[in-house]
């Protein structure tokens, strides 16, 4: 075309991003905090997918977990407590070219941000959400969280919390237009990575709940969660998340679950006795609000002026 010979087209060497291209600073979480593991997994995902740092945005709320964007060498938005979802949706709405992640905590998401959360599920924008569920308010030093188990001793309930917890899986699965719900745990690295990757690859709003260790305030719970492998069951299915052999080996309980079956997903979510790790539900065809948001981009100034003038004509005297 245009008489340019193929030989003259010079291919710019494509930049290859290494892990260090995604790392920034030293994460200031407690030693043994589960947040470190998620950070490594996400950085690995970025490298595997070769996400350009300038085209990648991590949006968070407020909490220990929400410090996450500061440790990513990409764009980040560490905004307000409970408000990561509207910000992330606003970022994505008119910028389909950006890879958008939401990092949120159990308080950030399921308490103060609950309204925005369920609507974000319904908007089903192409955003990967990782909810760090440590069942406690870490940042503000051990107050009861909406996901704290009944009887949890905290600084706001020194004799034990008095209400049953919110079940974020159930809530998500109950929302219309839900398109991806998965659960994993920070101390099962292979599964964690596979789940985050599946969430990223999902064309829509991926809600990933990560069961998280708060080593600082939830010692006994962490101990129980990480040692009692009988309480964990790995979801398996050809349409589901494919865990690594290590995970399948370490966790003997497996449950075959078809992630297109929402009723089965809801039943599993209701089972409080077992922590199922894997893909509860996926629907790749749910309506996507980000596609609506991006449907009329790129007007030229002349087109805009012509359109506004045509509207003004109707008000002309």
């Amino acid at each position, binding site marked *: 075309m245009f008489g340019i010979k193929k030989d003259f087209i010079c291919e710019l060497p494509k930049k290859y991003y290494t892990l260090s291209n995604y790392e920034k600073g030293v994460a200031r979480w407690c030693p043994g905090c589960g947040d470190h593991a998620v950070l490594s997994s996400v950085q690995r995902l970025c490298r595997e997918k070769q996400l350009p740092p300038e085209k990648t945005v991590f949006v968070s709320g407020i909490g220990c977990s929400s410090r996450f964007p500061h440790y990513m060498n990409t764009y980040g938005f560490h905004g307000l407590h409970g408000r990561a979802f509207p910000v992330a949706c*606003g970022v994505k709405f008119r910028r389909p070219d950006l890879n958008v992640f939401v990092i949120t905590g159990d308080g950030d998401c399921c308490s103060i941000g609950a309204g925005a959360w369920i609507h974000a599920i319904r908007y089903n924008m192409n955003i990967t959400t990782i909810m760090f569920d440590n069942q406690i308010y870490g940042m503000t030093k051990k107050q009861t969280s909406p996901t704290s188990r009944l009887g949890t001793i905290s600084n706001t309930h020194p004799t034990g919390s008095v209400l049953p917890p919110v079940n974020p899986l159930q809530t998500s699965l109950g929302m219309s237009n839900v398109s991806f719900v998965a659960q994993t745990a920070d101390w099962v690295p292979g599964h964690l990575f596979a789940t985050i990757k599946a969430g990223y690859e999902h064309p829509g709003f991926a809600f990933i709940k990560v069961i998280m260790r708060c080593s600082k305030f939830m010692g006994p719970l962490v101990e129980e969660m990480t040692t009692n492998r009988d309480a964990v069951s790995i979801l398996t299915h050809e349409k589901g998340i494919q865990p690594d052999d290590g995970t399948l080996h370490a966790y003997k309980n497996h449950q075959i679950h078809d992630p297109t079956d929402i009723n089965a997903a809801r039943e599993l979510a209701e089972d409080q006795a077992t922590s199922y790790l894997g893909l509860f539900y996926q629907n790749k065809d749910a309506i996507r609000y980000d596609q609506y948001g991006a449907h009329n981009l790129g007007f030229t100034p002349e087109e805009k002026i012509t359109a506004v003038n045509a509207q003004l004509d109707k008000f002309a005297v």
Partner: protein
Amino acid sequence: MKDGNGSLASPSPKTSNRRVIKEHILEIVSDSGEGAQKAGQSFGAVSAKMGNGVWTVEIIPADIQPPPRTKESASGIRIRFGSGKITNAGDEADVLVAFNEIVPYNRIEQNVYREGTIVLIENKWATDESDEIRKSYATAIQDFKDRKFVVHEIPMEEECLKLTPNPKKGKNMWVLGMLCHMYDRDMEKAAAQVGYIFRSKSKAVVDSNLQLLQAGYDWASDHLDLCYRLPSVESEEELVVMNGNEALSFGIQAAGIELCSMYPITPATSTSHHLAECIQSSGGIIHQAEDEIAAVGFAIGASYAGKTSVTITSGPGLALKTEFLGLAVMAEVPLVVIDVQRGGPSTGLPTKVEQSDLLAVLYGQPGDAPKVVLAPSTIEECFHFVVLARRIAESFRMPVILLSDANLATGVQPFPRPQLREEWLSPPVDQSPRAEGAMPYGWDEKTGLSQRPVPGQAGGEYTLTGLAHSAQGKVTYLPEVNQKTSALRSLKLATFGRTLKPPRINGDEEGELLVVGWGSTLGAIEEAVNIAREQGGSVSSLHLRFLSPLEPGLLDIFKRFKKVMTVEINYSDSLDDPMITPENRRYAQLAWILRAQTLVDVDCFSNVYGQPLGPGKILARINKELSKLNQH
């Protein structure tokens, strides 16, 4: 029969039976749902199109479906129109069209009629089958006459029944036709207007309404001995006519704003209704969020990502946006916020005018949160100030809040058609890779300005945070950094303020009394001041468009007057109240600010009747102040 004010008895040969008037104030009041507003808006639009000056205000009931034939049900419109420019809704009405005898009492309580006001009232109630209604009608008619109104009983429904089985639906267009005859309106324009307002309806509906329009016209020509003529001054300029919310909508599009993120709330919502009709054709989109917090968060997210955005709201919604506004200030995210003010606090008076959000927008955020606040004072400014707001927000990397109000929102006024400019639409930031070493907050020490990176821009990667941060965008709790960055954010206001000129003074540059206003009261204040001046009063006025930063030179100006007084539609304590002293008095909102900034003993005249301040009330207060000053 006594005519409306400004009547000139100089019949021209061609329209010898028409009384020439300079202006009239007309009200149409009906039960909610009977379409008085539609009739009035159309009348206003037609008048504007004929070259008359026009200002209209809606009379809106507080409830969705109040019981009919009650005072609460009063719904309608006031139209002030004249040969010259009309800048406000005026004082007492010359003509009232009433669909029943009860609804006028809503307005009578507000003293909007006078001796000689002409009342054109539906007469079907005189023969209603209910004794009670017949009695009520007769009593009211007698009362109107006792109040020295000039009553004409009109067979509205009877006439409409000849054309439609459901006259309740079409009566408004019949009334429009009647008024078109009374005021010699151009029927072609009226018909075009009817076609426009029913544009989404079937042809049968349009035709039926056109027939009613003509029938009203013909009936008036045969039966009504009220014929006026308003000379209109043909404008050289091309004009458009619309209300303030529509002007905001056009401003948003002309400013190249690509996203309007909102949650419905009166009286702001109608802006988004108009936008919804057309913004997609000009390359933008509306997001109706789940609440106002999410709405502003969404707009901030889009702006952070380099897309110009606006959020529109009214009082209660503004309250919810508070925390995000603080974030936009702290993290320096450009954002245009439009607040169409209504009565407050809390749910307050949703449909009524107040200028009560000034202090809330200025000081609503915990911590120091400097931002630009500007207030349009005309419908035309509603358009241009959005364009201005966008540019300031981006240049100064901060939220700009535009304070409109319910009076501007529903007021309809013609103004010169804006000539759209390509430069208004330019994308917000240069998105080429960032220079080596460029910092996300590379503040200029003198001005506080900095160039923001936008996602997509290589080399600009940073994490925006609402925590105290350094020029590198790093969280820091160092005391000197917080002090310094607070100063830099504040400096931006001073830097911007340097670009402003002192306000124009209406009247002499010095004198006894200076009236200071802001927002939608401009027209009424200047009209009152001009009348007082014609009567020899030493009074001038100035009207502020910028409330933060304040326009420069105020202290110099204030010093040239014996007394400075703001006129505002918000609450202030009255010194006549025995509990109130100059020390504990709570002042009107602009007065607070002016007192604090100038140390001048600025007084205020303000109230919260939910009504636009008429020139008559302002004039009375000016005269009172002038006579007090003369006694000293």
